[in-house]
C-alpha cells in the first residue's frame, strides 16, 4: 500500500515535471526564433529599407516597392474580404442560427479557415491569372481576401451570437426592420469583437507567402498600380533567402523582422481589443 502510494506520487511528479519541460520546450522555440529574427533583422535594418527599391545582387537598396505592394494587396483584401465576411457572418448569426444550411455553411467556412493557403493561390491562379493571361496585384489581393474571408465570417457569427437576445428583441419591439436592427444595433454592439476578427485576419494575411507566389508573383521595380505583377514583402523574402547572395540574405532578414514585428503587434493588439470587448459587453 505504502509503496503503491509512493509510486503514484512519483509518477505524478514525473508527469508534472514533463509538463513543465514541455512548456519550456515550446517557449524555447519562440525565444530562439524571435531572438534570431531580432538580431539578424535589426543589424540589417536601416532607413533606406523604406525609401529605396529592391536591389540586384551586390547593389544597395531597400524594400520600398515590396512594402508598398504588400500594403496595396492587403488593402484590396480588406476592402473585399471584410464586408463580405461581415455580411456572411450576419446571415449565419441572424437567419441561420440552428438550421441545417447554417451548419453546412459554418462547416465549409471552418474548412476554408484551415485550408492550405497554397491551394487558395492555385485557385486564384486558375480563376484570374490564367484567364487574364498575366500575374497581377489584383489576383494577389483576391487570394488574400479569400484567406481573410473565413476569419471574418467566423468572428462576426460568433460575436453576433454573443449579443444578448434581449437587445435583438428590444430593437425589433421598436418596430425597426430587421436590417436596421442588424446593422445599427447588433453589429454595433458586436463591433469590437468583429474588429478583433478583422485584426486577426489581417495578421494572418500579412505573413502569407504561398498564395502570392503565383498570383502577384514579384516585381523588382516600382509598380504604382496592381494591374501587373507586384512586389510584396513575403515573396521578396522568399526569393532573397533562397538566393546564394549574403547581402540578399540580409535584406530578407530585415523584411522578415519588420513583417514579424507587424504581425506580432497585430496579434497582441487584437487580444487587447478582445479583452476590452469582453469587459464592456452589456
Amino acid at each position, binding site marked *: 500500500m505504502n509503496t503503491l502510494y509512493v509510486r503514484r506520487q512519483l509518477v505524478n511528479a514525473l508527469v*508534472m515535471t514533463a509538463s513543465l519541460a514541455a512548456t519550456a520546450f515550446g517557449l524555447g522555440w519562440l525565444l530562439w526564433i524571435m531572438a534570431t529574427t531580432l538580431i539578424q533583422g535589426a543589424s540589417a535594418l536601416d532607413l533606406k529599407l523604406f525609401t529605396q527599391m529592391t536591389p540586384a545582387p551586390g547593389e544597395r537598396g531597400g524594400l520600398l516597392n515590396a512594402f508598398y505592394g504588400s500594403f496595396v494587396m492587403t488593402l484590396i483584401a480588406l476592402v473585399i474580404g471584410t464586408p463580405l465576411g461581415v455580411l456572411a457572418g450576419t446571415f449565419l448569426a*441572424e437567419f441561420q442560427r440552428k438550421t441545417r444550411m447554417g451548419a453546412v455553411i459554418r462547416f*465549409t467556412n471552418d474548412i476554408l479557415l484551415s*485550408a492550405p493557403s497554397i*491551394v487558395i493561390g492555385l*485557385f486564384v491562379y486558375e480563376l484570374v491569372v490564367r484567364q487574364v493571361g498575366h500575374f497581377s496585384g489584383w489576383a494577389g489581393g483576391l487570394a488574400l481576401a479569400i484567406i481573410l474571408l473565413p476569419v471574418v465570417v467566423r468572428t462576426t457569427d460568433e460575436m453576433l451570437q454573443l449579443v444578448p437576445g434581449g437587445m435583438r428583441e428590444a430593437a425589433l419591439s421598436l418596430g425597426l426592420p430587421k436590417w436596421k436592427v442588424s446593422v445599427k444595433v447588433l453589429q454595433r454592439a458586436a463591433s469590437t469583437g468583429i474588429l478583433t476578427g478583422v485584426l486577426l485576419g489581417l495578421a494572418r494575411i500579412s505573413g502569407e507567402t504561398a498564395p502570392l*507566389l503565383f498570383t502577384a508573383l514579384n516585381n523588382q521595380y516600382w509598380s504604382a498600380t496592381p494591374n501587373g505583377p507586384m512586389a510584396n514583402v*513575403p515573396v521578396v523574402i522568399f526569393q532573397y533567402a533562397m538566393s546564394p547572395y549574403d547581402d540578399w540574405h540580409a535584406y530578407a532578414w530585415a523584411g522578415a523582422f519588420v513583417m514579424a514585428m507587424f504581425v506580432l503587434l497585430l496579434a497582441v493588439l487584437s487580444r487587447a481589443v478582445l479583452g476590452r470587448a469582453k469587459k464592456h459587453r452589456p
Partner: protein
Amino acid sequence: MGDLIDISAAAAASPPRRVRTPRTRRLSDRTADRLFLGLTGGAAYLVLIVLVGAALSMAWGGRLAFKTFGWSFFTSTQWDAVAHQFSALVPVWGTIVTSLIAIVIAVPVSLGIGIFLTELAPPWLRQPVGTAIELLAAIPSIVYGMWGLFVFVPFMAAHIQPWLIDHLGTMPVIGPLFEGAPIGLGMLTAGIILAIMIIPFITAVMRDVFLATPSVLKESAYALGATRWEVIKDIVLPNSRNAVVGAIFLGLGRALGETMAVTFVLGNAHEFKWSLMEPGNSIAAAIANEFTEADSDIYLSSLIALGFILFVLTFVILALARLLLRATRRAGSEA
C-alpha cells in the same frame, strides 16, 4: 389602490396623441429586409462557392496530368521535367511523413503545455504563458522557413543528426530511417519545424477541454485521493477523447498544407528515400518551388494535380477534425 374616477380623470387630462408624420422611403421596410436577406445570404453562399470552386478549378487544371499518367501518377516515383514524366508518390510521401513526425512530437508537448496551463502554473502565469504559446501560431510561416534554413538546419547538421546517424542509424528495422550524411535538410528537420507550428493549435484545444471538464468530476476524484496526473489520465482525457482526437486532426490538417516553412528545409529532391535525413519533398513545397518554372502544360498540370491531391487530403482530415470537435462542443454545451 386607485379607483376608477381617478383613472379617467388622469386619462382625460392627458394630451391628445401626437399625429405622426411618417417618413417616406424609396424602399419600404419589407423590401429593404428582403434585400438584406439576399445580400447577406449571397455573401454566405459565396463561402460554399469558393470551396467548391477551388476543388473544381484544381481538378480541371490537373486533368491533363491525370489523363496522361493515369494511375501511375500515384504509384510512380518519377519526376523528370525534361522527359515530361511526373508523378505524385514522392511529394505525397514527404507530405505525410513530415506531418506524422510533427504530430508525434507536437501531441505530447501540447498535452504537457495544456496540463501546465490548467493544472500546474500559478494563476498569474497562465495568461502570459498561454499568450506566448499562441504567438507561435502568429509568426509568419516564411519566418519559420528562413529561421529553419539559416539557423535550425546547421544546428541539426552539427548536433542532432550525427548523433542520430551514429546511434539509431545502426539499429535494425528503424536503421534505414536514420541513414545518410548529416546535411541538416530533410524530412526530420521539416517535421520538427511543423511540430512547433502546430503546437499552439493543439494546445489551445487541450487547454479548452481541460477547462471544460466538469469540476464535480475532478473534485470527486481528488476527494478519493487521486493525484493530478491520475485525474487527467482517468477523468479528463477519457471525458474529452473526441476533442483531443479532433485537435490532433486539426494540427495534422495544418501540417499537411504548410508550405513556406517546409519549402526552405526539405531540399526539393524528387528521389524516393526511406531516410528522414535525406533531402525530400512535399506537395506544397514542390508547387512553391517549381510553379513559376513550369515551362510546359503537362508540368503545370502535374503541379496543379498535386494541389488537388493536397486539397482532398486536407479536406478529409479537416472535415474529420471539425466533426469531432463539433460533437464535443455540442455535448459540452448540453452538459
